[in-house]
Each structure stands twice: as structure tokens, then as C-alpha cells.
């Protein structure tokens, strides 16, 4: 009985370089592509973080003195765009999705390996293009939301480059999404049922649905916007009879789901990490699956909560308030189930668990401020203030970035066959956690008391609190040092990990570390209980003693 799970043309594999070189090549191996995404994304994270550093330096004093005002706007636009489109989205989807999904469905590669490589190789050029716009003619300076008419009136070159690179990145993520859906639904190993898949597959399936449904709308919108800029049409130009609110609706129709594109895969990753280090099955598998799908459906119908102070009629505000608030229910289910997974486990307090639990704590706070923001009467005061900045950094940094770090600690042994240094890892966690909260918790107060976002200058009364926040940012920047040191040191001189250092049951651990080119030497294993920790203990022991 031969199972043909390998979609790639075997002859093309021979052309693939091996060794370190393959990470710089048009490789078709999903593991190589996954790591390419990860490393490329991390470089952009450092760039985006350096821009955040520039923002925080500017904001240590109430005057606009560190950089010109236009440059400040360019910096915050690039910071937001890079962090979202070149760091979080490619890493939680592209990096971990590509690396793990084929293992989880028992395949040797993704459904469309070539498309996969194309999707990755769209990213570095568009990222470089975006950043180089800063040096050519001034980068885009209308925020990552690019609201017209501002985006039509600011210098055109930067805005057009911004649109082009976001279009390319959107295309990349659509290709990725199609690939994930096809891999999960069509490439599953025979005998493996959907409800036996590891939770990350479900998270990626939900995310990819959102990607495929919503990203094209962003693409269409940006095409219209670019027409307004280069061909002087009037879609969003009120002077020519256009309507600026339509842009906002279309933009948020994508960009609200985009926030779940940034966080659902992170939910999936946490669901993989917790059971392993707690030595317990994932609590409430089925409800976890339903709640992901609930988030996907609800996520598509809440976009106007970003527009409560724009021109929206009352009925619309109320509808979007209710719909948005209800996202707390499926999300809450996930959090309670994770806590129940912790409960009664045998938890190793290692870096992976610490970052995952940091994620839970931070995200709950960010989610609660989110539910507050969803209430129209509450939002009319804090919309477009630092309260919102605090809300989303609690979620994107305290949520997604914490999970990325957690995942690196968890899967590094798989990637390289070496262990990371745990003490350095815990130190990294402590520094990040303290720095993060120091940086963003005070921003809630700033927003409530009257500091708007996207400003380079502010009232002197906010100086002290801004300086505290900048101190936190400094700590966060410093916290990357032990991490980077740890990664480089361990990759070369780390302790050997063996194939399965965590004694994990998910399929990627049932092969060597790092895995061979086609994932398994023999046939793919059938894992129908990826979270079967602690079950049939007696049976297991008797087998060992035999």
C-alpha cells in the first residue's frame, strides 16, 4: 500500500541546495520556508522595534524636538505597517504554519510547495521597498490606516510605495491562506479525522478563511486609493464628490479580521505548548474548535467599532457594539479552557510556559479594555487616544509577540536539535514582562486623561508618565539582547536536545530533530490523540517494562 502524499515533483528536489545555503534559496521544503519566514520576520521586528524606539525617544519630552514632525508621522506609519504586515502576520501564519501544519496533517510538504515559496519570496522585496521609501522621497505618513483624504494629499511617492508593498504582502498572505486550507482539508493523512487534528490546525484553518475572505477587499480598496492618487479619480476625495467613510468601512472590513489573523494562530500555538509542559490533555477540545469558528464568524461582522466617532448612524453603532462585545464569549471560552489545562497539571516552569502564561495575563487585560472600547459611549472619549494604543499593544505585543517567544523556546530544539539556555530564557521573560507592562500600562492613563495618539508633541502634564513608558520601552529593547545571545550561543554550542526533549505527543516530535527533508524516514505516523498525556498510565508503563 503506497500512499502518495508528496505533491512535489521529486526531480525538483534534487536541485535544492542543502546546508546553510538553502535558507537563502528558493527552497520548496516547508521547514526551510517556515524558518525563512521566522528569521526574515525577526529582522523586520528589530527594524520595527528600532522605529518604536525612535517614537519613544521623541515622546520623552513634550516638545517635538527629536525629529521633524513629518518624520515622526513617517516613523509611526512604518512602525505600524512593519510590525503588522512584516512581523506578526508572516511569523504567526507563515513561519509556524508552514513549519508545523504538514507535520500535523501527516504530509511531507504543503499542498502547493511552489506557491508557498513564491508567497515567502514576495515578502523581503516588498519589505525592503517599504523601508527604502523612507530614503527616496519620504515614506508614507498617514498612519497604517492611510485614511483619505490625508493619504491623497500627503506626498504621493511614499504613499504609492506603501500601497504597492501592502498589496504584495496581502497577495503573499492570500497565497499562504489558500495553501493552508488545501493542506489541512485535502492533504490529511488517510485515517486522520478533522476532530483529531492538533488545535493549531483549526486555528490556521480559521485564520486562512479570514485571510481568503477579507484580504482581497483590502486589495481592492487600496487599488481604488491608488487611482485617487495617480489618476485623480474621486472615490475617496470629497472635493470630487467622493466619500471618505466608504474607505473606512472597506479598510476595517479587512483590518478588523486582520487582528484575528494576528492572534488566532497564536491561540493555536498556545494550545500546543500548554499541554506538553503541563503534562495534561488540552481541556475542552471540541469547544475550543467551535470557539475558533465563532471568532471567525463574529470577527467578520464587527469592523465598524473602529468608526464610532466617524459618521455612523446610531443603529449601526449599537449593532457593532453588541456584535463586538460578544466576541468576548468565544474568546473567553478559550482562556478558561487554557486555565483548566493548567489546573491539576505538572507544570514545568520553563521559558515556554512563562511566556504562554504571560500571554494569558496580558491578553485578558487587552481583551477587557477591548470590550470597554466596544461600548459606543465609552469609545467616544478614548477613541484615537493612547488608551487605544495601550489596548492593542497589550494584545499584539503582550499576546502575539509573547506567544512567538514562547513558541521559539518550545520548538527551537525541533528546529536545530539543540536546547536553549533556560536561565537566560527566564531572564529574558522577566525583563520583557516588566518592560512591557511598564511601557504600556501607563498609556491607559494617558489616553483617559487627554493625550491623543499620533502626536509628536503633547501637554507638559503628561511628561512624567511618558517618560515611564519610554523606560519600559528601553527595558524591552534590552530584553532582546539575552534572547539573541541565547539563540546564537545555543545554535552552535547548545546542549543536544535529542529527538523529543519534551516527551511530546504531537507528530512533529515523532521524527528526528531537525527533521529529514521529507519529514519522516518511513511513513507518516497516525496520531489520533495528540494530547493523550497521563492517559493509560498503567498500560504505558507495562509496555515499557516488557
Amino acid at each position, binding site marked *: 500500500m503506497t500512499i502518495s502524499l508528496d505533491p512535489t515533483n521529486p526531480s525538483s528536489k534534487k536541485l535544492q541546495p542543502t546546508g546553510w545555503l538553502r535558507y537563502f534559496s528558493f527552497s520548496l521544503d516547508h521547514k526551510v520556508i517556515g524558518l525563512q519566514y521566522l528569521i526574515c520576520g525577526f529582522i523586520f521586528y528589530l527594524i520595527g522595534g528600532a522605529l518604536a524606539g525612535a517614537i519613544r525617544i521623541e515622546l520623552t519630552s513634550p516638545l*517635538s524636538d527629536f525629529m*521633524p514632525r*513629518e518624520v515622526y*508621522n513617517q516613523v509611526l506609519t512604518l512602525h505600524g505597517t512593519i510590525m503588522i504586515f512584516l512581523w506578526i502576520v508572516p511569523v504567526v501564519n507563515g513561519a509556524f504554519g508552514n513549519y508545523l501544519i504538514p507535520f500535523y496533517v501527516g504530509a511531507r510538504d504543503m499542498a502547493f510547495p511552489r506557491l508557498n515559496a513564491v508567497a515567502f519570496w514576495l515578502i523581503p522585496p516588498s519589505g525592503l521597498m517599504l523601508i527604502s521609501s523612507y530614503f527616496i522621497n519620504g515614506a508614507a505618513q498617514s498612519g497604517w490606516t492611510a*485614511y483619505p*483624504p*490625508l493619504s491623497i*494629499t500627503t506626498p504621493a511617492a511614499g504613499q504609492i510605495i506603501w500601497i504597492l508593498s501592502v498589496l504584495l504582502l496581502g497577495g503573499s498572505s492570500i497565497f499562504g491562506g489558500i495553501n493552508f486550507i488545501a493542506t489541512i482539508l485535502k492533504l490529511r493523512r488517510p485515517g486522520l479525522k478533522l476532530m483529531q487534528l492538533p488545535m493549531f490546525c483549526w486555528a490556521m484553518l480559521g485564520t486562512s478563511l479570514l485571510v481568503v475572505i477579507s484580504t482581497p477587499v483590502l486589495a481592492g480598496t487600496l487599488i481604488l486609493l491608488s487611482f485617487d492618487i495617480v489618476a485623480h479619480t474621486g472615490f475617496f476625495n*470629497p472635493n470630487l464628490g467622493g*466619500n*471618505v*467613510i466608504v474607505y473606512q468601512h472597506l479598510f476595517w472590513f479587512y483590518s478588523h479580521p486582520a487582528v484575528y489573523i494576528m492572534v488566532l494562530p497564536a491561540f493555536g500555538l498556545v494550545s500546543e505548548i500548554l499541554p506538553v509542559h*503541563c*503534562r*495534561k490533555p*488540552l481541556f*475542552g*477540545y471540541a469547544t475550543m474548535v467551535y470557539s475558533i469558528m465563532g471568532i471567525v464568524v463574529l470577527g467578520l461582522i464587527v469592523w465598524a467599532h473602529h468608526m464610532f*466617532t*466617524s*459618521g*455612523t*448612524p446610531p443603529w449601526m453603532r*449599537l449593532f457593532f457594539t453588541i456584535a463586538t462585545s460578544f466576541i*468576548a*464569549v468565544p474568546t473567553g*471560552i478559550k482562556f478558561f*479552557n487554557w*486555565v*483548566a489545562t*493548567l*489546573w*491539576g*497539571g*505538572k507544570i*514545568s516552569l520553563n521559558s515556554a*510556559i512563562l511566556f504562554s*502564561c504571560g500571554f494569558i*495575563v496580558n491578553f485578558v*487585560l487587552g481583551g*477587557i*479594555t477591548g*470590550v*470597554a472600547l466596544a*461600548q*459606543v*459611549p*465609552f469609545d*467616544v472619549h478614548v477613541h*484615537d*487616544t493612547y488608551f487605544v494604543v495601550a489596548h492593542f499593544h497589550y494584545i499584539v505585543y503582550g499576546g502575539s509577540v509573547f506567544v512567538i517567544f514562547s513558541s521559539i523556546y518550545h520548538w527551537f530544539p525541533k528546529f536545530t536539535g539543540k536546547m536553549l539556555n533556560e536561565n537566560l530564557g527566564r531572564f529574558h521573560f522577566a525583563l520583557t514582562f516588566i518592560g512591557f507592562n511598564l511601557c504600556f500600562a501607563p498609556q491607559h492613563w494617558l489616553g483617559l*486623561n*487627554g493625550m*491623543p495618539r*499620533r*502626536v509628536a*508633541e503633547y501637554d507638559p502634564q503628561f511628561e512624567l508618565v511618558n517618560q515611564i513608558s519610554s523606560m519600559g520601552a528601553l527595558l524591552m529593547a534590552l530584553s532582546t539582547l539575552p534572547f539573541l545571545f541565547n539563540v546564537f550561543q545555543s545554535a552552535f554550542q547548545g546542549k543536544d536536545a535529542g529527538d523529543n526533549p519534551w516527551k511530546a505527543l504531537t507528530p512533529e516530535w515523532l521524527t528526528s530533530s531537525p527533521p529529514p527533508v521529507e519529514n519522516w524516514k518511513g511513513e507518516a505516523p497516525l496520531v489520533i490523540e495528540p494530547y493523550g*498525556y*497521563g*492517559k493509560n498510565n498503567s498500560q504505558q508503563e507495562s509496555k515499557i517494562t516488557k
Partner: protein
Amino acid sequence: MGSSVPKTSAILTLIISISLAVLGVWIAYNIKMLPIEASQNSPVYDELFKVLFIIGTILFIGMVAIVLYSLFQFRRRAGDEGDGIPLEGNISLEIFWTAIPAIVILFVGLYSYDIYDRMGGMSPLMHHENSSNSNPLDQKIWGGIGSDSIESSNTDNSMVLPIELTAMQFAFIFHYPKGDIITGELHVPVGKKVSLKMESKDVIHAFWVPQFRLKQDVIPGQPTVLNFTPTKAGTYPIVCAELCGPYHGGMRSNVIVDELNEYDNWFQQNAKETI
């Protein structure tokens, strides 16, 4: 799951959580987290804020407490290589923690609807201006929150002070139709309802007075309306809250809330026509 967990520590957690929640309530009532209240809208807003803050604190502290407790109580002891209890799920628990947030959310939703209504969000806009206006743009006016219905839906025209606001890069310009006054600073009397009709000349701006707890975008090609009643004399900042270009951060003005007679003085001095 109770058997393996000592009952006393569960009770202890409960007690700690409750006392932390009480602390949250105390903070909500005693620590100033918002600027002073200077409009009829503000006390209503602050009431909502308190309720949200209390609910949020209880939820957040509860979650943190459970996570910390689990990490401590269920940490792996040295030398223990075994697995945890193989609990895979529990239907009644799932129902429980689906229902609780749903109830909380329903409560929050209904409550904030009530607040929204009390802020005048649901009452029709512009009922006090001549509605026979035939300008097509006026017919699609969209509004922010007004404080109409707070004072027994007083729709007497003489009680309302209409003002027009034009925003442009990077200034707010106010026009008083009654005295034909044009000014860069907004003067309003205490206790009188103000109806701001806003339009932008170029890009989107936003009119925000933190002390009034009110914000409304000022949109080109799309007039918007904001109603409010100031309640406390003083000078408060008007902040532009929508990115509108390089000097967005400098696009500020003041609203000067005067006692009625001072306001009248100011008005008489500046009015072009006597009324």
C-alpha cells in the same frame, strides 16, 4: 477535579479574589483616573467607566489569581517525571463559562445602551434647526452624542446655542450665527445646551474635549453634529484627535466655559450686529 486540590486553598483563593475585587471597587471610586467633569455628559460617562472598571478588575484579577495559583500549586516538583491528571473536558464547566461571560456581556451591553440613550445618542439630531433646509448634504448629517434627553427633552429653540465649526489644517474656526462672531476659541455659557455643526475644509479632523467626554470626527463633505451642555466654568483644551498631517499634534484650541453674565459680556463685545 476537587479531590486532588486541598479545599482550604480553594477557599483561600476565593477569599483573596474577593478582597482584590473589593480593592478594585475602592480604586474605581477613590482614585482619579479621568479629568474633571465639565459637561452634563461627563457624570454619565464616569458612571459607565466605574462599572466597566469594576467588572474588568474582577475578571482580570480573578484570571491572574487562578493562573498564578495554578503555576504555584501545580508546579513540577523535582524528580517527578509523571503526567498530570488526564482531564479532557467537562460539559457543565464549559456551559458555565460560556454562560457567565454571555451574561456579563448582555448586562454590559444593555447598560451601555442605557448610558448611550441618556447621553442623547438615540434622540434625533438637529430637531431645533430649521429642518426645511433643502441642502442635500444636510439631510445626511450624522451626529455624535448629544446631551439632549438628559434635561427632559427640552426642545425649546431659545434654549439652544447653535455654533458652526470649520476645521482645517491646522485650526478650528468657530462661527456664531447669532452675532456673526468668528473666533478661534470657543466661548460657551454654563448650563446652556450648545449644538455644534461641524464641517472640514480639507482632511478628517476630530473635535475632542476630554473634560466633556465627547468626541466627533469632523469630516470633509459630510457635516456632523455634536450637542453638549457645559456644567463647570473654566478653560479646557480642544484637541484634534484624528491624524491630519504634520501639525496634527499642534492642532489645539480652548473652550472657555463662562458664567452666563460673563458670556453675555463677551458676546456683546464681539457681536457684529446687536440683537
